[in-house]
């Protein structure tokens, strides 16, 4: 009983460990800030180790993406509750346009997205998850994932075309 559990635990542990580089990549793109991203990964790992008893099989990686995505959404929500001073750069048009846009434009283009759209896009194009896996991570139907992707791409195109970002729509 004991050894069986230990084997399962060590398998879980090594699966978590193997996912760390990818989690860092996803978090970096999600937050566009190295420090915040690693904080998020650390928080995700703490919670994963602590909540291991809630994990009964399945894909550890998807589970970790789920935790991280939720923690980030919560982080943004609590940031939104706090009054913050932001610089409004209305005429902050991209330096370049078109698909060859520089890395700074990619960051700003991602920043122009609604959080759920950004997460969906990154999970697909950066992390290589299937639509079905993203649906599980985000806790929504596959059709919702597809529409988030479509909106994300349309928004980024508009952004890179130098248009004013379209009015953000919720969900």
């Amino acid at each position, binding site marked *: 009983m004991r050894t069986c559990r230990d084997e399962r635990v060590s398998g879980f542990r090594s699966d978590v460990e193997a996912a760390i580089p990818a989690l860092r990549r996803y978090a970096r793109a999600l937050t566009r800030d190295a420090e915040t991203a690693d904080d998020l990964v650390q928080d995700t790992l*703490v919670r994963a180790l602590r909540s291991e008893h809630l994990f009964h099989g399945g894909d550890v990686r998807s589970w970790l993406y789920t935790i991280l995505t939720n923690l980030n959404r*919560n982080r943004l929500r609590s940031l939104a509750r706090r009054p913050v001073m932001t610089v409004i750069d209305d005429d902050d048009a991209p330096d370049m346009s078109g698909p060859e846009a520089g890395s700074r434009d990619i960051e700003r283009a991602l920043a122009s997205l609604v959080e759920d759209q950004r997460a969906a896009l990154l999970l697909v194009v950066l992390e290589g998850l299937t*639509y079905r896996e993203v649906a599980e991570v985000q806790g929504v139907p596959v059709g919702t994932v597809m529409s988030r992707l479509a909106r994300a*791409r349309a928004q980024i195109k508009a952004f890179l075309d130098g248009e004013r970002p379209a009015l953000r729509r919720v969900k």
Partner: protein
Amino acid sequence: MTDPDVPVTEAELHAYVDGELAADRRPAVEAWLAEHPDDMARVTAWRALADAIRARYGAVATEPVPARLSLRQIERAGRSWRGWAAAATVAAFLLGGAAGWGAHAFTERSASAAARSTAEAVDAYKLYVVEVRHPVEVPGSEEAHLTQWLSRRVGYELRIPDLSPVGLKLVGGRLLPGPRGAAAFFMYEGQSGERFTLYSTRAGGPDSALRYNDDGKVGALYWADGDVAYVVNGEANRERLHKVAESVYAQIERSPGR
């Protein structure tokens, strides 16, 4: 869907770019793109976007992992992180996204232990929360006595959380029969007279993250830590109940000896 004459949808274009399109539909999409330069331009732009994102962030995964993210380090820091992790568990629960994982992961044993404790707590809540003159046995003004007495009866060290940060004052507590021996029951009251209760007893099941349920009137949040289960009850206002539970959770996690 395999008919090449069926017009290609935008969804299919995305699926094509993302490698999600059924193989038998691919020739039709490619034929379509050859004849629709606008769509071809979109597909090209989406691919370029994916390439740009990968070019910008792909290398992060090959960077050495900072020491603070090593599992050994995180486990060593485990104890001091407990309070944080508790908050994170609450946070993830608040968002609901992780609830699915938690829910399907529950064993029957823990589910029934949770269900029993929750049911007992809800019954106690319904019975005493309407009580005007005698809602509790020992008033909150005798908190030290209440703590000592109930700790002795339940057989583990209790700590009565201070819920003034969430606008609640301790009314007092009482001893109740629980599913596995004695249970401690505390009542709190808000400014507009709304009442919340905290119920604690032996868990009889494994650790568990927060589980919410309500019957439309009474809301309950259950969790178990070590061998101790907690249930917070109040009106079925999920958000408010979470705030209260979060405060209880954080203080219990920080208490010594547990």
